[in-house]
């Protein structure tokens, strides 16, 4: 059974939702990022690690800045794999690592090599923001990752068509489908959680057992609690990244920065139902 499926099975028994924290891999630098992720494994069922791409077409200014910090500190796909590998080895808990990135870093790294590296270090899932449902790359990655038991997540939003939603459900394997609270950039201020709830139920209607993840603009423990009532995974990103920025600007050492970020993550995570 894939890592993510195992997680969902366990949580189902406990009737609990999973908490997923997003960070940009290597933000603000390799050592701090590693310390942060290690600390976060104590509170996150899933860590979504963003492999930055300089011409990202979908990230909020907050995450764009994190991408810049990571790129400036010399991060790339090879280092992201190394970082996650070390975190997994040194923490030895069940936290699932999901890589979130764009197609270009994967194409340049080599699609086959990417699948192989993901499998060998124990990546639980992959999210590629700009991979088209019908592209040849989609087929290769979906099949290749599935064969290794690695999850593949598609993203949908309240504005997508029924047909698009159904195909996205089909292309989501061994993982959760990512439902954005609105069609916009990550980290927006006002979210209408009613639209999401409808979309979660729609997904469940099409595929009863498809785990649903909800993200974009969820930042308060109250929101986490609310969303976790109907979603299987609650995803928080921008505000965690903001904490990293804040701590980095206060020049906290890697261990202190990790503790500072994790304190906030813990609050969010403990709010999941």
């Amino acid at each position, binding site marked *: 059974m894939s890592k993510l499926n195992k997680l969902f099975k366990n949580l189902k028994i406990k009737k609990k939702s999973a908490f997923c924290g997003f960070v940009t891999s290597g933000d603000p630098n390799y050592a701090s990022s590693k310390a942060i992720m290690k600390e976060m494994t104590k509170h996150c069922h899933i860590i979504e690690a963003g492999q930055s791409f300089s011409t990202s077409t979908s990230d909020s200014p907050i995450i764009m800045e994190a991408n*810049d910090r990571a*790129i400036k500190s010399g991060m790339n796909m090879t280092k992201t794999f190394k970082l996650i590998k070390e975190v997994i080895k040194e923490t030895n808990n069940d936290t699932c690592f999901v890589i979130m990135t764009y197609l270009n870093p994967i194409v*340049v790294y080599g699609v086959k090599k990417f699948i192989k590296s993901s499998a060998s270090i124990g990546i639980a899932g992959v999210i590629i923001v*700009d*991979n088209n449902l019908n592209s040849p790359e989609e087929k290769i990655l979906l099949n290749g990752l599935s064969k290794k038991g690695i999850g593949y997540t598609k993203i*949908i*939003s309240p504005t997508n068509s029924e047909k698009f939603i159904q195909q*996205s459900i089909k292309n989501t394997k061994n993982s959760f489908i990512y439902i954005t609270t609105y069609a916009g950039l990550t980290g927006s201020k006002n979210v209408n959680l009613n639209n999401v709830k409808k979309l979660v139920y729609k997904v469940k209607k099409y595929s009863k057992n498809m785990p649903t993840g909800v993200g974009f603009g969820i930042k308060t423990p109250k929101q986490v609690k609310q969303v976790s009532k109907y979603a299987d995974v609650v995803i928080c990103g921008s505000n965690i990244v903001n904490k990293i920025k804040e701590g980095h600007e206060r020049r906290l050492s890697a261990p202190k920065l990790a503790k500072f970020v994790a304190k906030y993550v813990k609050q969010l995570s403990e709010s999941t139902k």
Partner: protein
Amino acid sequence: MKIDPFKELNPPTKDGYWINKKNKERYGGQYISPLLVPNLKRVQEGFFKAIKDKKFMKELNEELLSFIGVNTPIHFSPELTKLAGGEKKVGKIFLKRTDLHTNHSHKPISAYSCCKLAKYLGFKKVLTETGAFQNGRAVASACAALGLDLDIYVGANDAKKLAINKDISALHGANIIEVHDSTKSLLPAMAAALRAFQSEPDSMYIVGSVAGPHPYPLMVRTFASVIGRITKKQFKSLTGKDPSTIFAVCGGGSNLESITYPYIKSNKVKLYAVESAGKGIKTGKHGATISGGGKMGVLLGMRSKVLLNGGNIADSFTEASGLDFSSIGPEVAYLHSIGRIKFLTATDIEAKKTFMMMARKIGLICAIEACYVIHAAIREIKKTGKPKQNHLIHLCGSGEPNVAQMMEFMKKNK
């Protein structure tokens, strides 16, 4: 002159790929966040509907003729011919005077056409990006003419440069938004415009070249090909036949495709693209995606050749802002891959010297971008031109925006 109707000569697949049959490599496609899918669908369906709508196309062509002045002359240049070795040795060199359009370059054609489409589809506002404000200015003028609001995204470093086109864009009423991401230049500006499109589905995004996710490369070259359609008729009536060679400069590839598109199936017409070699290809400081060894990558919604630096996009470098782009339109990359378009380069210094030569000997102030093609074309014609041949160079823009930059060059080189 009447504009001939558009004929599809090189259709992409329904997913927007041009596929090289020999090596199966694909160019184009639509690599975007799922959140942008509905927006692009609206543009795509609207575009296909509009180009089949006789009333829309008739009106558009009339306005391109009257408002943009697309019917610009082609004329023989005895001076350039002489520089290349003389008519007896290499044939004749002609110039297509696209610099005479309203707003002084090829950009206004696709800018105006896309804005007209935006209006046709009921959008009230347009989003676009720009580097040197050539596209920004063209879209700003079109939006003013058509009563549309406009946000122009520009890299903060580009925005700092004093530029007449920036001021003109502002005078037309455009809202200018500076982008501070990454290299603060054209690429992040384009990414920012696409991101804005994601949050503003009621605005239509317009791209400044034959790049971006499907249908943009197809849409821009289809609209821009008006230049080539007119050129084909003009050249026939001027010389009795098609040109032997056509030369155009290539950043993203819009002016190249605009003039060469109607000839891509006419194999007797040799097509040349000229890239900026910046300080020289070997220095690594250039804007030559093809000649500088760009690799296949995926950016800004398309699969195409890209200058790469690890998994990220490498910075391009050239003093011609219009050529400062680390990638190239997918259809152009495809046409290069099948050997239909040959690529040449010229360096920044060669282009600047050519600018001065054109100013002093020909009496024209040419866009610095156009000077790369003039230089490379003369060099190539000198080498390979034959008597009785006719060569056509695309003079794609006026050099007024480059005046300050060139005054400095002139003073330094006294």
